[in-house]
């Protein structure tokens, strides 16, 4: 008759977890990696030209080379306008032109921060939509399982009736 199945169910043990971490580590720090999650695919792989540009600009301004480079330029500017003897001081103390240049930078940085923030909130929105779809799918599976268990219980009850009807 039906053979008894003693084989263990597919384990989600240490090996599986290690494989997952390995795949995640490959995707870490690389927005150009092949993504598994559909929202990551939509957000990065299928990004429009404007969106890619927004990501690039945010990645460049929000990086240590930019911050360090800006600091070096600032110090150089002040040095050239205070101590340098081989060059005309074009912006003497209190550095009004430097102020303008930095204000200019801050004026653009603000909107770019919002640009990046908007892109993240857009991603958050479609992530939730996808979660709702997935939740529907999960519910369908559970309903199927429930129907199957009910069927099984019906059969077991019929067997009980058969057995009870037998003369002891």
């Amino acid at each position: 008759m039906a053979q008894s199945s003693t084989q263990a169910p597919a384990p989600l043990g240490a090996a599986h977890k290690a494989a997952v971490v390995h795949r995640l580590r490959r995707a870490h720090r690389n927005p150009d990696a092949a993504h598994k999650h559909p929202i990551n695919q939509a957000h990065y792989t299928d990004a429009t030209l404007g969106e890619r540009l927004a990501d690039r600009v945010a990645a460049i301004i929000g990086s240590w080379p930019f911050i360090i480079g800006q600091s070096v330029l600032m110090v150089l500017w002040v040095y050239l306008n205070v101590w340098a003897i081989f060059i005309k001081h074009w912006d003497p103390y209190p550095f009004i032109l430097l102020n303008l240049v930095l204000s200019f930078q801050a004026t653009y940085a603000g909107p770019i921060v919002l640009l990046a923030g908007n892109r993240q909130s857009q991603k958050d929105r479609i992530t939730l939509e996808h979660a709702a779809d997935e939740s529907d799918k999960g519910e369908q599976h559970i309903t199927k399982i429930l129907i199957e268990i009910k069927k099984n219980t019906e059969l077991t009850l019929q067997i009980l009736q058969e057995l009870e009807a037998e003369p002891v």
Partner: protein
Amino acid sequence: MASEKSVPTARQRVARQHKHPVNQLFHDEATVGERVADQAASGIGSWWFLAIQSVIIAVWIAINSVEFFTHKWDIYPFILLNLAFTIQAAFTGPVLLLSGNRQAQKDRLRLEHTAEVAEAAEKATLQILEEIERNTEATLKVLEHLKKRRDAKGAVQA
């Protein structure tokens, strides 16, 4: 009164190994630059920073406007203070983006992890369904067997 099994707070967690693989990759394996970025963002975005900045501004304006102080370096309308503000803003923007990029990176990583987990869960669910279906088949066979036996007994008695 806290029980021994009490859940560690976020602050206590920082010093420990994280449990979630995304936190492990993101926090425990962060590079020096990433750690400094996190520190900078949490330093600037704190009440301490705002309070100290306010005190410095107040002292600056006081020294440069109140007659009692003799050494003045930035008299009204405080052009150098303006430059200081601008420098702060010029650094805050990039640090904000730095921190935002890092959060976006974590978000991306978290979704990838979710996809992995969802895949495993769906596989498990389908296995459960399959197993129950097998069980139903077996139960059905038992029922058929019993019915057959009853019919055979009835035939013998008749």
